[in-house]
């Protein structure tokens, strides 16, 4: 069995930052493996440990810099990785769900997985749409916001819980092959061991261009254009207590006492 896990390198913005055109100024960003994808990787690796003969392949669309993030997934036990990149991608200010699904879909078609795991959303773009777009493109079944997964490969079914609003789970069966978008909390992601980190260095990380995937330049055509990026005007009217911690804590204590708290 083969499990394909989509992983995204997300942009993490510093507390104080500046905007440069349509992106955050480089000086104020760091990069990390998307939180939701950590859970997806863990879920795949756990299945590979429990079931015989499972290969876990990760796929990412991202620049060379993303290799570091991909290696994190390899260090946690994924077997190999594919990274899709093309210089033309650098010019796109944002990728919409359809474009992501086209690129990831081309890899999925080559890999022909039995199960695809994605995150519910990416922490930076928060489209919350790539997994289901990909499923539709691949003509696979799917389930979004999965917080429990019990794979029954023999029956060709994934028994899942989907986490709805308000602490209610929907329980459903999804035919395989399927794409599941994984919610945080579904498992307890491991830390990479030193051995894992060492092994990750020698695992296969294939870089593929659009041409390699048989995609023409129109694969990047999108009617969606990002036009502005700005700090929202704060709607807030918060009264801020200022000064050292002793002072601010004292003022807050006064407020709380006024409200009858801690009497």
């Amino acid at each position, binding site marked *: 069995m083969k499990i394909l896990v989509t992983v995204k390198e997300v*942009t993490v913005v510093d507390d104080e930052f500046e905007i440069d055109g349509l992106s955050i100024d480089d000086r104020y960003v760091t990069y990390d493996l998307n939180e939701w994808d950590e859970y997806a990787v863990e879920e795949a690796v756990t299945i590979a440990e429990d079931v015989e003969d499972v290969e876990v392949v990760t796929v990412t669309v991202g620049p060379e810099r993303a290799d570091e993030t991909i290696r994190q997934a390899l260090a946690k036990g994924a077997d190999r990785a594919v990274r899709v990149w093309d210089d033309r991608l650098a010019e796109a200010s944002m990728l*919409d769900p359809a474009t992501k699904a086209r690129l990831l879909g081309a890899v999925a078609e080559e890999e022909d997985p039995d199960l695809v795991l994605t995150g519910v959303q990416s922490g930076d773009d928060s489209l919350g*749409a790539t997994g289901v777009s990909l499923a539709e493109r691949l003509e696979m079944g799917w389930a979004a*916001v999965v917080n429990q997964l019990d794979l029954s490969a023999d029956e060709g079914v994934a028994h899942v819980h*989907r986490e709805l609003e308000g602490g*209610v789970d929907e329980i459903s069966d999804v035919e395989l092959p399927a794409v599941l978008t994984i919610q945080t909390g579904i498992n307890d992601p491991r830390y990479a061991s030193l051995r894992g980190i060492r092994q990750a260095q020698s695992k296969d990380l294939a870089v593929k261009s659009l041409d390699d995937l048989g995609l023409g330049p129109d694969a990047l055509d999108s009617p969606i254009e990002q036009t*502005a990026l700005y700090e929202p005007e704060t709607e807030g009217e*918060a009264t801020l207590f200022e000064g050292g*911690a002793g002072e601010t804590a004292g003022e807050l204590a006064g407020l709380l006492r006024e*409200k009858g708290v801690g009497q």
Partner: protein
Amino acid sequence: MTVLAVAEHRRGELRDVSDQLVAAGYDLADETDSELHVAVVGGDTAEYGDRLNRPSVDVVHTVEAGAEFNHDVSVQAVEQLVDAVDPTVLLLPHTVNGMDYAPAVASQLDRPLVTDAVDLAVDDDLTVTRELYGSKVETTVDVHADRAVVTVRPGEWPPADGNGEASVEAFDATIDESQVRSTVTGFEEAVSGDVDITDADVLVSVGRGIEEEENLDLVRDLADALGATLSASRPIVDNGWLPADRQVGQSGKVVTPDVYLAIGISGAVQHVAGMKGADTIVAINKDPNAPIFDIADYGIVDDLFDVVPALTEEFQ
């Protein structure tokens, strides 16, 4: 031209987001001189159809399709309805079930999709405002196409209400069962423990800023000193540091205490959904740009490891 908004229901109830979608649809229809159509797929369509007949709605389409949401059925039904109505903009909710079918609808229809809209405007193109980086930054995107699918963030539009004069029309969708690849077999409520955070007058709520499980004692001590109840944002529960019944937010509990003290919580939309109704919101966060300050009444921009012990001391 037509704007079509599709309502959401679950377990016998039309969900609140439905009237918000009608309101978003109304704004858009008004701006573009379009008709406003609303649809509901499955559930008690007679009752929901009636409820969705809000002022300024032109047509309510009711589609018989089983009691509960099934994404494969909804995709087919909405696709057929869109073929019949041909809306310029199709509005769906950015809810868990919206995330489970909107991308497939857009993909099937080959229409561009923009998710999680917090504002909509039409100039030549449709312009959608959405948030990035955990709501620290806003962006606008233009859709250069004459048809689009947009999912709308819950809680952003004030709900439509009142009774309108729409015609309520049944729409027959033909569901191809061979394309139904998933079956909903039931629901499960989260088990509740011995503490009900929705009952508390004062909540001391802790987020990822606390860093380590050992550090939780700092906020526990504060809660004790204040006679308050301890609650948390999702990562604390995901890590297994506190039980699930302490989680505040979209997938946790909705709380309305007199005082909500958010400590090391950024104020992600799914968290805010659970606590924005608190009377007084106080935030302690070292990031002055954290979105929690947008809804806080009082705030301290500082390191919680300095402020929290000092605050506890004030009450000992």
